[in-house]
């Protein structure tokens, strides 16, 4: 009898899992596996994957890295050990994404804190406001942002009126960073807000009671306790930023290249699917390792305090 109930129960669980599992397998696991397979294929004359199997796509990436130590002072000290087209691309992508994540965090934290301290009714309204951008297509919003920063766009018109020299940042890494911060802000605010909303404010009183000033209360008590939201928000910002394409394309105006844009090019203009797939796989592995290390560091820090 009990056996039967157990069996029925596990059947039920299987049944409940089926739609999700099916979806993930068909639309996530199989395509990913397919990309992996393509990355080991050669290209035909049109750029599509074809036999025979080869390691050459990865070989190109490895051969790209050259040991070439150099120190330059071109607009700031730059020390580098290695050189390489794709290495540079990857490095720039990681760096811009890192800066983006930090800036997004610095903007999102006060906003999330402010929202979490509002009365219940206002919190709902604020959440709604944060989510409003999702109702408009991302591409359209990025074009709007592009328009804002144009030479004769609204920002420069205002600056001009104030007698301030115009901003000429369009098609620079700064513009790309602004675009990425703008696009990812809600993904940082929402998990942070969720963490902060659950935060027990008595904790800060307890810290203060035990002699901690505002600064130490924040770093020793609040930050570790909202850590999960902070980690989630950072990952949700960093990972899409590394592989971002539309923002780089538009805000960079074709002058700024990042790894995501380069991969896209392999599937279109450069017509080399297998090489594009190999780049995707390498990027995925690197980002995964970075995310895991980040999570580890976050957890380690929390255990240490």
């Amino acid at each position: 009898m009990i056996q039967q109930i157990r069996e029925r129960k596990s059947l039920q669980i299987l049944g409940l899992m089926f739609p999700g599992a099916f979806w993930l397998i068909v639309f996530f696991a199989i395509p990913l596996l397919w990309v992996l397979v393509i990355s080991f294929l050669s290209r035909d004359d049109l750029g599509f994957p074809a036999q025979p199997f080869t390691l050459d796509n990865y070989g190109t990436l490895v051969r790209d890295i050259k040991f070439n130590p150099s120190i330059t002072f071109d607009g700031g000290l730059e020390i580098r050990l290695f050189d390489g087209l794709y290495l540079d691309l990857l490095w720039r992508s990681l760096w811009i994404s890192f800066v983006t994540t930090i800036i997004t965090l610095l903007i999102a934290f006060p906003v999330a804190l402010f929202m979490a301290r509002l009365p219940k009714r206002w919190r709902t309204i604020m959440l709604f406001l944060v989510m409003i951008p999702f109702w408009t297509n991302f591409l359209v919003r990025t074009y709007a942002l592009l328009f804002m920063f144009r030479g004769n766009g609204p920002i420069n018109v205002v600056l001009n009126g104030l007698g301030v020299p115009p901003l000429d940042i369009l098609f620079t890494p700064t513009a790309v960073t602004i675009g990425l911060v703008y696009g990812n802000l809600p993904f940082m605010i929402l998990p942070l807000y969720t963490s902060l909303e659950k935060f027990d404010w008595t904790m800060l009183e307890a810290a203060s009671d035990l002699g901690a000033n505002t600064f130490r209360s924040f770093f020793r008590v609040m930050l570790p306790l909202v850590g999960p939201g902070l980690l989630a928000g950072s990952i949700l910002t960093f990972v899409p930023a590394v592989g971002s394409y539309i923002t780089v394309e538009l805000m960079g105006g074709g002058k700024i290249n990042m790894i995501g844009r380069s991969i896209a090019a392999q599937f279109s203009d450069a017509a080399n699917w297998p090489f594009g797939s190999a780049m995707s796989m390498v990027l995925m592995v690197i980002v995964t390792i970075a995310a895991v290390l980040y999570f580890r560091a976050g957890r380690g820090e929390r255990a240490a305090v």
Partner: protein
Amino acid sequence: MSDFAVEMRNVTKAFGDVVAVDNVSMAIKQKEFFAMLGPSGCGKTTSLRMIAGFEHPTGGEVLIDGKDVGSTPAFQRNVNTVFQSYALFPHMTVEQNVSFGLEMKRVPANDIKQRVGQALDLVRLPQLAKRFPKQMSGGQQQRVALARALVNRPKVLLLDEPLGALDAKLRKEMQIELKTLQREVGITFIFVTHDQEEALTMSDRIAVFSKGKVLQVGTPLEIYERPNCRFVADFIGETNFLDGKVSAINGEFATVVVAGDKPFVGRVNGDVRVGADATISVRPEKMQLLEKQPAAPNAYEVRVHSIGYVGSDTRVIVELGTARLDVWEQNSVSTLDPNYFFRAGEPAWMTFKPENALVLAN
């Protein structure tokens, strides 16, 4: 060192239009176990929070050890708090929680280790130092909260409803333990409670709060036996009120005529005047039920309305005219005879001694 650990002088705290604490003055002696008692919203917690430094008075002064702490932030005050929810840091072990305060004061690491050990011994939890708060029972968490506060050797320990979250049995145990602990460490304890029994059993003195004001400050004996107003008499323990008009005052005693024709005599407590309205307050255990009319004052024939047998005593509700009164008879005889007790519907005589009743001005 000041005679008083904490003094509140005409302290007022308003949140917008709401006055939470209204011109409160009291002085808490060194090493005293002091209770702030009252129903919710009476201003007792706000008073505690002003001593802790979480709130700042909108009027008056708060003194700790004789010094005005008006502008001193909480983290610079030599007082520590045991929070109602304990507010233990969930990301830290017991040991880390307890050492937090010492770390903030930059106590050398060796001393921290030693003092944390002593504090955990004091609350009898040394074996749980490496646990996280979530892995502990409510009672254990409470001990950690105590250790975390006491390890700092504060001038005053503040406890906000410290036993509120514990079950009844544990609460009784902790009452005794807190009292013992306070004697051991020799620190002034100020605790907030809405439980009058807790306040009576634990404290040296009690302040009774109502609607932002302090109505009476006194020892448990004074508060119970000589409440200075109707609210205090009603809030602390059980009591019967008989409303009437004062017909005569004779030294310490006054006669109050109840329901137009029933004179009762009681001890004058407060500003009682002939001809004014007054209330006789008499506790149920100080009344007696008799079968025959006694030759004593304050004796009236009543009808037994209902009986409640609670083992140690029998709680009888009697009717005097339209008024219902509680009379508690101690069961000093061991009997199985149901006829030994009064029965509902029967007549009886109720009486109490004038010195056991209070006449309170309305």
